[in-house]
């Protein structure tokens, strides 16, 4: 930076409760970054509502079909036909067939009114796969054949699209976390070993990473996921896809960890541990690895959105997850056609959650990058 800034004094005397340990400083620095904190809060909210309890938040079950084929989003109203203000409600929908244009349209019927309620009883489900429940966050009290609420419209099989986006988020969000976890496990372990020992492992890691880096990566993704046999069960396909993502991503991380280890292993504390007769494994994973963690956490946070996007793009192209599974990518398959955009544009509601996820991860990663290096004094 052009202008040298004086290092800000670390808060010592003012707050007695503030510790001076590394993680206390990190927490303190992180809290000062409003954008990072906002990202963290949003991300927790996303994971809770999409990955943990979509059954409760969604008004219906995932595969609950209806006759409301391609019904547009239901408007939630506060003012009735007489211009009177009242509690939120929705109007009923009637099917109209236009015999001339051969179109099916949905028309609002102002005679039928359904009040919107919180915590209504509906489809049975098991919360966290354990607790049987039938309470949903919101909904209308009506027979499901007569009227339903579709706040983001319905798809070609009459399923509630909001519900599908919530459930789809579970797979898409988790693939990022699981894939990144595998990447970390592979990348850090191999990076530490290749940095500490050098030699054959180092050679292998280096050459392999170079090859992967030179290989055009999305075509490789595509070819590998096209190679997953079509008849495998969806769950196996899901894990294969996660494995592929991790397999292609660990190289870069391993390289960076290796570089850090190369400098750390010459530090006094590492030499001291060695002279005390510590085993190699203890030095590597007890003494050296923690030194790389702050760096690794930032890289991991910033590369999760890439994984989520990779899944979305692959599934959208029909090379990743396939339709019985619902993910944001498979939802995009239906939304991303000219016909869909012209006649059922609400299917594009799947795009905003994807963008919000990417943005929040970037915000969090940016905040962490500044916070995890609390001694830099910037």
């Amino acid at each position, binding site marked *: 930076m052009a202008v040298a800034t004086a290092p800000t004094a670390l808060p010592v005397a003012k707050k007695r409760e503030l510790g001076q340990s590394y993680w206390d400083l990190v927490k303190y620095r992180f809290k000062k970054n409003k954008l990072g904190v906002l990202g963290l809060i949003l991300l927790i909210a996303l994971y809770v509502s999409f990955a943990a309890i979509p059954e409760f938040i969604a008004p219906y079950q995932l595969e609950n079909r209806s006759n409301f084929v391609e019904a547009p989003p239901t408007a939630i109203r506060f003012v009735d036909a007489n211009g009177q203000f009242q509690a939120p409600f929705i109007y009923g929908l009637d099917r109209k067939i236009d015999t001339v244009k051969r179109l099916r349209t949905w028309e609002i019927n102002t005679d039928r009114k359904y009040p919107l309620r919180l915590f209504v009883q509906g489809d049975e489900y098991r919360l966290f796969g354990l607790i049987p429940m039938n309470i949903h966050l919101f909904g209308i009290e009506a027979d499901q054949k007569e009227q339903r609420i579709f706040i983001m419209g319905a798809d070609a099989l009459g399923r509630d699209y909001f519900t599908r986006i919530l459930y789809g988020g579970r797979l898409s969000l988790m693939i990022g976390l699981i894939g990144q976890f595998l990447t970390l496990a592979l990348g850090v372990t191999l990076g530490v070993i290749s940095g500490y020992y050098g030699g054959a492992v180092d050679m292998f890691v280096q050459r392999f990473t170079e090859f992967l880096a030179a290989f055009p990566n999305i075509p490789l993704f595509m070819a590998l996921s096209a190679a997953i046999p079509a008849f495998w069960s969806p769950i196996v396909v899901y894990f294969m896809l996660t494995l592929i993502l991790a397999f292609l991503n660990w190289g870069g991380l391993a390289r960076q960890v290796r570089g850090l280890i190369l400098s750390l292993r010459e530090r006094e504390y590492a030499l001291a541990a060695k002279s005390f007769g510590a085993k190699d494994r203890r030095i590597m994973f007890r003494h050296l690895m923690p030194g790389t963690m702050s760096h690794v956490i930032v890289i991991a946070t910033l590369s999760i959105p890439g994984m989520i996007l990779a899944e979305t793009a692959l599934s959208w192209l*029909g090379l990743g997850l396939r339709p019985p599974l619902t993910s944001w990518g498979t939802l995009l398959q239906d939304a*991303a056609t000219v016909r869909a*955009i012209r006649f059922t544009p609400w299917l594009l509601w799947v795009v905003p959650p994807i963008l919000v996820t*990417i943005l929040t991860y970037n915000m969090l990663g940016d905040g962490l990058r500044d916070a995890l290096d609390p001694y830099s004094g910037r």
Partner: protein
Amino acid sequence: MVNYLIRRIGYALIMVVLVSFVSFVIIELPPGDFLTQKVEQLRARGDRSAEQQVEMLRLRYGLDKPFLERYINWATNFLRGDFGESFEFERPVSEILGARLGYTVILALATTLITWFLAIPLGVISAVKQYSLTDQIISVISFIGLGMPGFLLALIIMYFAIIVFNLEVTGLFSPQFQDAPWSFAKFMDLLGHLWLPALIAAVTGIGGLVRIMRGNLLDTLGQPFVESARARGLKNRTVVWKHAVRIAINPLITILGAEVFPSIVVGSALVSIVLNLPTIGPVFVDSLRKLDMYLAGTCIVFLTIMLLVGNLVADLLLAWVDPRIRLE
């Protein structure tokens, strides 16, 4: 210099062979091939001579031969300009890809140009007016651009074009020029359709380059030679553009070749799929889905060649722009 070029091209050739071999292996991995899919299709249609037909095709495409022999056959023919035959279209690959190849290159070049000519000025303005309102606006937009994948942006733009403006944004030509011979009017029509997909595919790259340009230029502006240029009474514009930018731009050329260009190639392939453009992208994805080996293999090889050429051009460009760099 010549030595360097020869060595680089040699490496590139080895890379192409490796990539094509690995992609052949990968496409070979799943059990069954294109013909097993075909047999099922024919049977479903109630075609009784399915097995015989497929046996004939198997002989014709040489699918009965061992894997290695098939690869070597294909690779040697590739050098002679014969890329094999597509199973699905039952036509030579070169015929299917022919025109598409040109459009792919044109789209990638247009995207690169747009990236370069938008990112550099924006980055420079952002650095010169650090912490001003302009800088903040550019920064926010570039962060959004960084996180925005091209194919989603293409979808959103398509939504606005269709619903709000009632436009057709798909394809590369207006209907009346689709089959017309090349003329100036057709060329203008191509430009009129090209800029939007190129801009969409450029967004991610622009976001990244603006940030890097800003950072580099800020570092450079603090250096003594900039001070001395100012002290000599040069105009501000000369100091920034002729002295500082010339130094700060060097890393960008490398990044353009090594990171941005690959993402442009891939990004424009995805955008092409959304906007239905006649480039390699849509054909490639389709061929992978149908296990159409020779078509998919040829697509991968061409994409790889494009990336390698882009990389090489960036390195040569860097040596030309920065005389301190010697290519050994």
